[in-house]
């Protein structure tokens, strides 16, 4: 089972929930930090990490001497990563999506495969948990191609083991967020109950719903905010999987990089129950599928 923990915006406590859920998980587990622009799960789970492996994307390189200026590549590129200004051909490798079309279409062999660094992938272990994280290169504008490579590594490990996976997704509802929930069996949305939190939660729920995956909500800092989200979830039949109370000790634990499930028995119980509800959610939806 692959579980993705996501949120409509940053600062909802998504990473804290991921870390806590991981520590109470009672089956073989791989945890993946796919929030590649700002990975910080390792600050809570303290994995021992191996050395980083660089991830690349293939981008064209120009041999200007061979180029006849025919413009075929310019016309083909959907991303304006090649431009012809008067008669000067210029490549913008940081805008390239790596489709390889320009290289294929150049009859003069003036374009060859070069590469651009996307980021670094690290693997390690936090206790019994397999840990995987990706860090996007600073200045790199495209995270999905890099995230695909991190996911490939995740799938590789899954082939060798029979684990569950918990993915920490980037906040928001744009391409990177979709990219991280798309392979999961269950989506867990973390939010608070403030009007802002509710607003972003709704956006996330609307963007992820078409994927048809079972989704549940964790309400963080419960007690702060309004009842709107509870009414909404009731109306839309979205299960509330856990409510994490607002508590000073949680903020303190967070600021010291501690996993909040270990702060008190009460909190530990909240996450154990979250774990079971996630399993139920996955099992229920499995049943629905087989009935249909």
């Amino acid at each position, binding site marked *: 089972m692959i579980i993705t923990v996501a949120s409509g915006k940053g600062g909802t406590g998504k990473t804290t929930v991921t870390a806590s859920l991981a520590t109470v998980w009672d089956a073989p587990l791989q945890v993946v930090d796919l929030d590649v622009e700002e990975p910080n799960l390792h600050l809570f789970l303290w994995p021992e990490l191996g050395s980083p492996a660089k991830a690349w994307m293939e981008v064209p390189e120009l041999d200007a001497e061979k180029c006849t200026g025919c413009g075929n590549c310019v016309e083909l590129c959907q991303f304006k990563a090649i431009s012809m*200004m008067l008669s000067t051909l*210029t490549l913008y490798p940081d805008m390239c999506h790596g489709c390889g079309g320009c290289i294929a279409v150049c009859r003069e062999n003036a374009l060859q495969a070069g590469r651009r660094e996307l980021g670094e992938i690290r693997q390690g272990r936090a206790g019994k948990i397999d840990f995987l994280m990706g860090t996007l290169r600073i200045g790199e504008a495209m995270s999905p191609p890099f995230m695909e490579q991190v996911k490939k590594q995740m799938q590789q490990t899954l082939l060798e083991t029979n684990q569950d996976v918990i993915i920490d997704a980037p906040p928001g509802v744009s391409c990177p967020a979709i990219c991280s929930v798309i392979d999961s069996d269950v989506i867990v949305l973390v939010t608070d109950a403030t009007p802002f939190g509710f607003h972003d939660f709704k956006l996330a729920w609307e963007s992820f719903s078409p994927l048809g995956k079972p989704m549940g909500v964790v309400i963080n800092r419960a007690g702060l905010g309004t009842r709107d989200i509870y009414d909404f979830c009731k109306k839309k039949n979205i299960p509330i999987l856990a409510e994490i109370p607002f508590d000073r000790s949680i903020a303190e634990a967070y600021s010291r990089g501690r996993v909040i499930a270990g702060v008190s028995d009460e909190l530990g119980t909240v996450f154990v129950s979250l774990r079971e509800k996630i399993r139920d959610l996955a099992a229920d939806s499995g049943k629905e599928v087989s009935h249909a």
Partner: protein
Amino acid sequence: MKKIAVTSEDPTLDDQVDPRFGRAGGFLVMDLETMEARYIDNGASQTMSQGAGIQTAENVAKAGAEVVLSGYVGPKAFQALATAGIKVGQDCDNMTVREAIEKFQKGEIPFADKPNR
């Protein structure tokens, strides 16, 4: 110096300069010798997900302009214009196209060597 392109939201000399270069609605191309003006639509670049600045720079080059006046020219567009030797005058927002051209002719708009933001 012969041809100058000014980003503009609408097709006449008395319309406002469009402060955006890459996503400009269009541009007026003025021949400074004959004082003839021609409007070129750039609307298609507004729908591009990326590369609008480069596309617009290509359009400006095709129109034969040697100078561009706009509000803000992004780094990619700037680089593209530079490869074609097209000079850039920025911060021409809050004025009409006519005012921008007059200011330019008086030498009051300096050429930029990098994007202004």
